[in-house]
């Protein structure tokens, strides 16, 4: 498994453990899955996921990255974009 896959899997596992509802444990989540449309997550839950990832990855600023997005970008935000940011920022 390469580093990209590892980050994506960590993001997906963090989403599952943070939301911690029955359906999400077996819901098919991949890089294209969108937080608003596909997962029905509200912003308060999204922030919790971001905070958990920030704790996991330490130096990487996820909350700051999010606040630089505009509303259209936030609406369409996908799991893959979040993983991509972690990979890019971690280099």
């Amino acid at each position, binding site marked *: 498994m390469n580093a990209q896959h590892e980050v994506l899997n960590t993001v997906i596992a963090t989403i599952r453990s943070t939301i911690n*509802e*029955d*359906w*999400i444990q077996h*819901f098919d989540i991949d890089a294209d899955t969108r937080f*608003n*449309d596909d997962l*029905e997550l*509200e*912003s*308060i839950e999204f922030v919790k996921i971001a905070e958990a990832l920030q704790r996991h990855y330490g130096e990487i600023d996820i909350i700051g990255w*999010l*606040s630089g*997005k*505009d*509303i*259209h970008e*936030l*609406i369409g935000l996908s799991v893959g974009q979040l993983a991509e940011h972690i990979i890019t920022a971690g280099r």
Partner: protein
Amino acid sequence: MARVLITVPPLTGHLNPALALARQLAAEGHELAWAVHAQRIGDKLPAGARVYALDDEIQSEDLGSASPKVRGIESVRVFFEDYTMPMARQVLAPLEAAARDFAPDVMLVDHQMPAGALVARKLDLPWATQVTTSASILKMSPVLDAWVAEQYRSLQQDYLPAEKRVERPDFSPQCVIVWSIEALLGNAHARVPAPYLFVGPPQTQNRRGIEFPWSWLDASRRCLLVSLGTVSRDRDTRFFEVMLQALAQLPQLQAVMVAPASLAAQAPDNVLVRDYVPQVELLSRVSGVICHAGHNTVCEALSQNLPLIVAPIRDDQPVIARQVIDAGAALFMRHGKVTPETALKTIQTLLDSPQLAERAGALGAQLRQAPGEAGAAAALLALACAETEQLPC
């Protein structure tokens, strides 16, 4: 007597509180006029109402229709960018003409009718904003706030002189009437700074009589009302099907479900599916409510001390859901994802948690004490009096 010009968008949730306020003002003898989309809502106005039509030259399809399928924050973006703002641009001119012609002592402007706010500001008329729910006066996040400010900046640019432009023109600097109670707001978010007056929901509503088989209700069993409101009722049937599966395992309960009649065939014996219900009367007979966190339904349930399960879908529902959960009177269900197992557990928790009903009762007491349209009318008239120094207003 005061002359009052009312402007609201052609949406039931915004028209209804204005109608309650108008009945109050008319009963006190004041002179009213409406600047509204008459082709759409003219038939809902009081008989003989003085109307300035804003849609004489506008095709109905010019107004973006509310997309039924979008959810969450995307529905907020669509409503604002594709509905409220284009409509504001369309009606600025006819609305200004109406205000000049009627020469009101005071204007009542719905929060989703920003053209009215700009006209009042341009003509230096006294005006109050009406806000119909407990959600839209909050600053939700810097990203959202910046987006909203940008929308208003561009709307004001071509219409108001530079010295009259402000970051949030939609909030009157004189009075913002909120048809909700402060206790629902919580402290999770700051408010847009404005002179708020919380009047609670309207206390009188025009209701058409809706038939209901009252004898179906079994006094020996507790009953729940399940409703997603009129806008989302026909969205899809998944949520209702999940509720039916959960309720089938709770024969000691009854439930009335406001849903398409086609679902009746799948309903277990203890669930009655109805297209429409007399909601307020029915609420006096149930022990709890499962709903979409629409502000009306939430307030009507709390007013009767009922705890809720909230499954928000769109618009301001996620915010209202969070408010009533944080106030301790509701539990959460994820509308499009909830499983029968989780629904069953959540319903059991709702019925086994007296503290939820206690918190609902505390909010209910405040809702019942709120002044409603009488308080709103007094505030509006105070603005008119301050301007004209006439007595008695």
